[in-house]
């Protein structure tokens, strides 16, 4: 309900703003640039928790706000080509070359979950879930290397999540995306690989003695990986509207899925929506 209201408000705002803005002219000055996109989509986006089922209609409506801001070497950006992006990123450009660069990034790499809330809202109760502690989102700082050509983007992040998780929480995230065109479509094919240190996997998948119960025995997780493949398409409908659709298949290693918490090993996410470009 709230999401739809927000969507409606944003669409109304978009209509009003369309009269005021020249199409996507993002450059206000040499130093300051911005771009804003709003997306309303039908989506199938299950969480990593097996017990959390998508049952309400609102679970299939997604509203996305894609804000990119850049001032000199500081920036806020959203990776709109990874359909399952968790949040925006803020960063600072350390090195900027013709086809590569190095940035300092602050972002989230793992979405958290609240077992109590899941138990509260699910008809199907899972014994022991309510005893688990809440898992916070995994945010941290990263050094990112990017290689980019007209149709290719490759990023490699080395991130520390010590700020939000345990001391030895770090990861390596690699992502490659290739753009190809068919008629007026832009099609992005992407593949990602993430390595998580044992402390990260253990924070989300592990069960401490305090959390353990008959159905949730103590579980100490090893390090783990995530592999994802994605195909994503964009089609222009007008100067301000585009149609977007995509599917992402994600695989988590057994160090996640072996956990008694009940984490999915395979997740398929799909969506189709409309974007308004300011």
């Amino acid at each position, binding site marked *: *309900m709230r999401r*739809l*209201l927000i*969507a*409606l408000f944003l*669409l*109304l705002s*978009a*209509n009003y703003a*369309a009269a005021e803005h020249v*199409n*996507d*002219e*993002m*450059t206000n000055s*040499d130093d300051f*640039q911005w*771009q804003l996109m709003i997306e*309303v989509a039908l989506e199938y986006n299950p969480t990593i928790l097996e017990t959390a089922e998508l049952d309400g*209609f*609102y679970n299939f409506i997604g509203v996305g706000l894609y804000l*990119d801001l*850049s001032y000199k070497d500081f*920036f806020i*950006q959203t990776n*709109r*080509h990874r359909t399952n992006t968790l949040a925006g990123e803020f960063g600072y450009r350390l090195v*900027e070359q013709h086809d590569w*660069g190095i940035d300092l990034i602050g972002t989230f790499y793992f979405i958290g979950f609240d077992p109590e809330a899941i138990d509260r809202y699910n008809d199907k109760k899972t014994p022991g879930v309510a005893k688990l502690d809440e898992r916070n989102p995994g945010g941290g700082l990263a050094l990112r290397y*990017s290689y*980019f050509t007209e149709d290719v*983007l490759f990023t490699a992040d080395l991130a520390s999540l010590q700020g939000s998780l345990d001391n030895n929480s770090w990861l390596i995230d690699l992502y490659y*995306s290739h*753009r190809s*065109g068919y*008629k*007026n479509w*832009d099609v*992005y094919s992407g593949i990602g690989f993430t390595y998580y240190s044992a402390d990260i996997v253990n924070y989300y998948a592990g069960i401490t003695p305090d959390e353990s119960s008959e159905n949730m025995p103590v579980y100490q997780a090893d390090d783990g990986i995530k592999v994802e493949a994605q195909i994503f398409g*964009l*089609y*222009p*409908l*007008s*100067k*301000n*509207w*585009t149609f977007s659709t995509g599917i992402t298949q994600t695989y988590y290693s057994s160090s996640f899925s072996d956990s008694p918490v009940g984490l999915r090993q395979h997740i398929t996410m799909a969506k189709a929506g*409309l974007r308004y*470009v300011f």
Partner: protein
Amino acid sequence: MYFSRLLILASALLITTLANASPESATAPTISPEISKFSVLPATCITLRKGRKCFATVTINLTLTQMGHYCLYQQGNIRPMHCWQNVAPKKLRIAFESAKKVVYILKNETSQKVIALTSVEVSWVHKTSSRKRRWRIF
């Protein structure tokens, strides 16, 4: 219940916006009394990025006031796209494929005079920025 109403409202708003944004037919001023109508639909082809080739099927509507030998040209091309001889043409569907504006010319082959012009513009959603290309790579 509320969801349905809101969805209907949102859909109506969206359709209105899209309809407003849709390019209308470009009607060119006729140069000669030999023709009463010469227009193309859609008048604008929308692509995702500036500089990218745009693809569309466009319909040229034309009404001649007299029979004769007429040919349709794309500006810059010597070869005609289509010719009509002593027939009354009404519509012609052509494949549009260009990164920039294309002008269509109707010519009387007997007099070798241009009798009407119309065009299809190319517009885009995203303007390509040369500076900080990485930031806006896609």
